[in-house]
């Protein structure tokens, strides 16, 4: 049960709460959210590894060595080799570039677009009526089914994947942002600002938008992770990134036929996806707890 400690909750130590006490605050953040910090460091490590791929992997990802086919992990090939004798470590690292890039771009497009639409929708009722019906319609389709059918018609390719995934995720962001705008719009200070004589756009951008920033940031981290999963899924199914480009999903497609003979082909790239997505999710959870005081302690 919750029990407000009477008088204890309303105001707390003004020094600790002031944003000016920056350094002290940072220490608190680290102490209070150890898992989020760990996840952040893990993400950083993954990004560094992927960027420095040429320095870490000895081979090129598409270098075929027929004599080295289906070799298990060894000193020469840490993650083993695939059915064409390509180095799995190199493929995983270079594949990570593709997957992370697509995830990031999709996250930026859907969160940017979704936030803008969500703000307008939450503030102007007429726009709301029309846009929300479209959003409902788009959300009435399972995400992957929608993406596959769009790609099926438009043809596979990196750009198509990015566009399709953005179309899939924008409605989700719109919903979340609209939700918080509706709450903020009801709060008294928006009325107060209007009564003071502020113009609507000023209220929208100066007062409402900052309040939506926490959900925006949190959504960005989650959509990043969904997009990585979805891209991997699409590529695995053969309707995503073309085979010629290594991506985590593509590597796993190759691995599928060798599941009983060469476990390393699926384990390492799979772990890469899982670790990246896990770190993003833990990071996102931590961000949400930190930015949304209402959910704190939950």
């Amino acid at each position, binding site marked *: 049960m919750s029990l407000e400690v009477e*008088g204890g909750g309303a105001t707390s130590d003004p020094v600790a709460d*002031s944003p000016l006490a920056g350094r002290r605050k940072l220490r608190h953040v680290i102490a209070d959210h150890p898992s989020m910090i760990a996840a952040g460091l893990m993400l950083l490590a993954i990004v560094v590894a992927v960027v420095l791929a040429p320095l870490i992997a000895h081979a090129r990802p598409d270098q075929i060595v027929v004599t080295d086919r289906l070799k298990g992990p060894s000193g020469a090939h840490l993650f083993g080799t695939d059915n064409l004798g390509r180095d799995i470590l190199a493929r995983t690292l270079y594949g990570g570039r593709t997957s992370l890039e697509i995830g990031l771009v999709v996250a930026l497009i859907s969160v940017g677009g979704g936030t803008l639409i969500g703000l307008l929708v939450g503030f102007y009722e007429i726009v709301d009526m029309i846009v929300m019906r479209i959003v409902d319609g788009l959300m009435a389709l399972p995400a992957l089914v929608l993406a596959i059918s769009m790609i099926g018609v438009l043809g596979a390719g990196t750009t198509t994947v990015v566009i399709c995934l953005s179309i899939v995720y924008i409605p989700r962001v719109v919903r979340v942002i609209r939700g918080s705008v509706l709450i903020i719009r009801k709060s008294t*200070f928006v*009325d107060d600002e209007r009564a003071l004589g502020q113009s609507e756009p000023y209220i929208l951008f100066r007062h409402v938008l900052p309040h939506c920033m926490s959900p925006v940031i949190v959504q960005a981290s989650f959509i990043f992770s969904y997009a990585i999963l979805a891209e991997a899924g699409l590529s695995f199914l053969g309707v995503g990134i073309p085979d010629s480009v290594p991506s985590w999903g593509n590597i796993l497609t190759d691995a599928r036929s060798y599941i009983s003979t060469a476990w390393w082909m699926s384990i390492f790239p799979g772990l890469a996806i899982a670790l990246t997505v896990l770190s993003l999710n833990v990071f996102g959870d931590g961000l949400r707890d930190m930015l949304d005081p209402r959910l704190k302690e939950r």
Partner: protein
Amino acid sequence: MSSQIVEVGPAVSAGTSVLEVENLSVSFPRRGGDLKALTQVSFQVKPGEVVGLVGESGCGKSLTALSIAGLLPAQCRVEGSIRLRGKELTSLSPTDRRALGGQEIGMVFQDPLSALHPVLTIGDQLTEGPRRHFGLARTAARERALDMLHRVGIPQTRNLLDEYAHQLSGGMRQRVMIAMALMCEPRLVIADEPTTALDVTLQAQILELLRTTTMDVGASLVLITHDLGVVSQVCDDMVVMYAGQVVEAGPTSRVINESRHHYTAGLLGAVPLPGERRRRLQTIPGTVPQLDRMPTGCRFAPRCGSADEQCRTEPALEPTDVGTSAKCWHPLPPGRGLARVLESAVEPAAPRTDAVPREPLLSVRDLRREFKSGSVLRRKVVEAVKGVSFDIAPGETFGLVGESGSGKSTVARMVLRLIDATDGQIMFDGGDLRATRGRRLRQKRRDIQMVSQDPYGALNPRMTIGDLMIEPFRLHQLGEPSTWKSQSVAMLEEVGLSSSMLRRYPHQLSGGQRQRVAIARALAPKPKLIVADEAVSALDVSVQAQALNMMKDLQDRYQVAYLFISHDLSVVEYMSHQIGVMHLGELVEVGSPVEIYHHAQHPYTQKLLSAIPPVPWLNAK
């Protein structure tokens, strides 16, 4: 009234207490030291007695109730003793304690809608207690429930048992809550602000019902409230709490008329009394201290005018000359309680009789507002405001009083042009406000400002007080940009705040301070009218008095008119030159405070007046 199920329990011999709380302390474990929320609280409840626990929010009243009922979170540390009919509760196992509590203690909470389960039927919720504790069969329990509902004034013709909480009205829900508390015929009923969430006209009725039905089943009643009127109306004894301690206790009439503690006297002086319009409210400076920053020694000393060196050590709760007890080194001399407060009241000044009737600042004529709801097929049109007309003279206050849903806030929002009127006329300062739009309207807004109810929500929580204060100056280009900051500081000082506030965020301020900032912001553009919608309702009594006094002072200084809206007739009467009574969307009566108080014409106004405890507490039991 059927009485077959009233089996008055084993008679407690006279003199022994139903409940004895002794040196009760409660603390919450926290990083960096425990938070002590209650310190050495002691009081007793005798059979058939009504005891009031009084104090402002943050004083530990509700926590005391939860401790007695055994409903504290598990991590709380409880010390001291709680004896129910001689049985020590603190040493019982949690399971036994809860089972015993359910039978012997009935609880009534503040907001019946959230305290009743949303998807269980009323019958289910009423019967589960006796079925559990007495092993009653379903039908027997339902009969008992029906009987109990009848006793709390729900007609037998209406079977509520298969209905749900949201289908009932607010008063009905609280009756159900009371019936639920009495289902097991407890020895003790604890009611935590049982009428605060209800409409004014219902409050007195429900309170009386609570008292009589509780007595009827032979239980004692502990009533927790911030409302001194409520206490004087029904309580035999009262216990005044401040900052987690008992500061004064004793028979209600003596504590009220012969207060010995400065806090009790201060609280009494802070409440506006009917008919005492010209009296300046007494205030208690500052606010209730927070748990983690308790003053050492007497906890009230920092807010007390008579504090001296001795008050740095803690006084004991000691008997006074009038048979009460008070926790004070320098108890007030005799004759300094409510009696003194009333004597010191200045005689009402003669109503202003201006020779020339002045041109009204705001003139509202036949204002209407409809709300459409429902779907396209079943369109429902609700008339929230049905033709309201009134005038406000420059520099005067028009008080609008009414219950929730009476349409008073809708009128405010129409005057502020936050929503459009369906029909009618709003003339402001010689111009037609309803016809003003766009940029012209935004300029006009400078002259009509608002102070809203919720001091938490009214300020953007992400901006500093400094940024918030500069906004009106920048928006309306008041003076040179270089002077905005100093003007802000001047405005803050005007409402009794210092420039140290500038860098703080709203959540770092107390409720009273936030409301001051809201008032300073509204005053900054030097408006001609301020619409104050329940502006002081969320504040504690002593802080409310500070705000009311300040608003009056500012009116005198700046000649600003107020449209002052409240559900509290006494507050409206204290503030206003003219009062309008709203009921179901109509303005049923308009008049001067004297006219409203002494010659109320409309039955609804009379009903509102009768809901106020009969002229003050002098005749308290």
